[in-house]
């Protein structure tokens, strides 16, 4: 028996696979052509896709809009920078970023989860702003200039090793990291925990009557999102060799929200596609005018008003129908399954 949520998640997995294949093909072409610029741009898009993924986990599955998710992204990035400058080890940096973003999101979650809805949005916004200002004024963390001079590291996997300086190699590492984060999130959402989140979004007041703790589920979701953002952030200094307080500013959080809306709320993979689309739009429009925000802003408004499921909402119903036909499920349960009306996406925008 396949229910709507499982079906729509499977369709997302098909799109994720397509993305990986496409990205690998581009990496091979890029490596063969000796390209650096586009591979680095693509890597950056994927890193910010991790941040968008964490925003979508919160907004699309528990219904909480975070306007300050860049806080954990920045914490991950700064932790990774500090570690890499002492010990140039990929695994140590990722482990440290996991630890700091975990602790930070537990603290942040205890504060933010006391309130709901629009207050949640404003409190996350405020927390990110406070920490960003503190970092901005702390000389040990480079203050407003940020920290430069992160060494180019070698990322070891047993006998193999990839240099973060190699554009194609690091692109593949980031792609793998983001896809692992996507996979873990998708897996967790498919467990009873994920169903509780969906239930909270649909009707929070009824969930306790079913015997589940709303507080625990919201907290777990928040911490998971914080850690995803932190781990994505940890990759940033490896790519660019520096961090700056701007990583924590509202524009970073705002870009993640834009990516999620453009890609499709509550689809997970939409966040990744949205982030790539945003980077492509920025560099594409940016090549003939510096006023790309007008176009992106209008697209964003149109997406919120007329295309609540984003670009994934246009493509995914087709894939869902395809999956149904292959499994022969359409004939068995014609009324149970409505392609394109996944409960998550429906709930998100109505």
């Amino acid at each position, binding site marked *: 028996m396949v229910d709507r949520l499982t079906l729509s998640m499977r369709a997302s997995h098909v799109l994720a696979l397509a993305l990986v294949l496409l990205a690998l093909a581009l990496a091979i072409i890029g490596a063969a052509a000796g390209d650096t610029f586009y591979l680095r741009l693509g890597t950056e898009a994927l890193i910010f896709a991790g941040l968008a993924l964490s925003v979508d986990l919160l907004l699309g599955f528990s219904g909480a809009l975070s306007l300050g998710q860049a806080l954990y992204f920045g914490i991950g990035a700064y932790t990774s920078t500090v570690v890499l400058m002492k010990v140039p080890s990929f695994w140590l940096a990722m482990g440290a970023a996991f630890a700091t973003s975990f602790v930070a999101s537990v603290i942040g979650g205890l504060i933010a989860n006391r309130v709901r809805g629009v207050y949640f949005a404003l409190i996350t916004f*405020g927390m990110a702003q406070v920490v960003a*200002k503190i970092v901005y004024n702390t000389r040990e963390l480079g203050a407003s200039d940020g920290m430069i001079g992160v060494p180019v590291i070698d990322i070891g996997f047993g006998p193999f090793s990839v240099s973060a300086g190699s554009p194609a190699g690091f692109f593949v590492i980031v792609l793998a990291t983001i896809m692992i984060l996507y996979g873990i999130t998708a897996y967790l959402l498919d467990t009873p925990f994920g169903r509780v989140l969906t239930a909270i979004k649909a009707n929070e007041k009824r969930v306790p009557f079913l015997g589940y703790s709303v507080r625990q589920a919201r907290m777990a979701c928040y911490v998971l999102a914080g850690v995803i953002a932190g781990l994505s952030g940890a990759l940033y200094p490896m790519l660019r060799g520096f961090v700056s307080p701007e990583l924590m500013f509202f524009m970073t959080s705002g870009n993640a929200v834009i990516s999620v809306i453009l890609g499709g709320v509550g689809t997970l993979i939409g966040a990744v596609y949205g982030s790539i689309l945003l980077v492509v739009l920025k560099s594409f429009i940016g090549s003939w005018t510096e006023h790309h925000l007008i176009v992106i802003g209008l697209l964003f408004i149109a997406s919120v008003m007329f295309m609540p499921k984003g670009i994934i909402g246009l493509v995914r119903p087709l894939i869902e129908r395809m999956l149904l036909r292959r499994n022969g499920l359409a004939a068995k349960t014609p009324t149970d399954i409505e392609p394109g009306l996944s409960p998550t996406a429906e709930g998100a925008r109505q």
Partner: protein
Amino acid sequence: MAALDYLQFVLAPQMVNGLALGIAVILVALGLTIIFGLLDVINMSHGEFYAIGAYIALALAALGINYWLLLAAVPILMLPLGMLTERVLVRPVFDSKDRHVTTLLVTFGFSLVAEDVLKLVFGPNTQRPATPISGATELFGIFIPNYRLFLIVFGTLVVLGTAYVVYRTRLGAMVRAAAFDRNMAASLGVPVSLVYSGTFGFGVALAGLAGVLLAPIYSVFPTMGRDFILLAFTVVIVGGMGSIWGAVVAGLLLTQVQALASLVISPVWTDPIVFGTMVAFLVFRPQGLFGKLGHG
């Protein structure tokens, strides 16, 4: 005597400057809080309307229009702009299931567009209009720039006027009735639709007025709304979303905290202190100091 000198030459001027900023923040926060109180909408583009007001003033002043006329002309021009924004952007998503999030996102999108349009039309550089009133007055041994004095008096009058309209007139009663119960108000003959866009327009006009008033002090640049809106949001949250008096009290308090903290601790720590206050309020008293518009 040193303590008195400190009071007269350091503390008091700082507090007066804080008061001038406070009045200005209250003007911006007032529009924000009224829009939230009535429409239940977080207007993320409020800071951009403040910037638009300042730029319209700049453009009209370049045409040779007197500054005193601008104080009336800009709000009058901003009113239809606000009403149009409400009709085109807010209204279509107003009845969506998650109104807070959807309207917040739409107005956030508009703020991106508005900021870039300002950059496109007026250029990215900072412009500083001439101060319309020069000189300074000595009050109790403190020298206060005349323009700040005017700002404090005029701003106070605007706040009192707004409160009078909302709480003491038939128009205000209609607005409060629509905020309290939209359907009941409609069945009693209140043109709810018009009240909604009118209120949004009024809030936007207040932001525009703040833009005109503050341009000579803080200069005019496309992202001017961004820094200011944070403070305005803090004031609205601490005061209680939708509460006019809450915005006034919180606006005066927070700007004094800011002014004194920058003196006693360090200017760089004022923002964390002010935002920290906001976060603390959201955690321990999410409804703020006072209640909501239309609810008492």
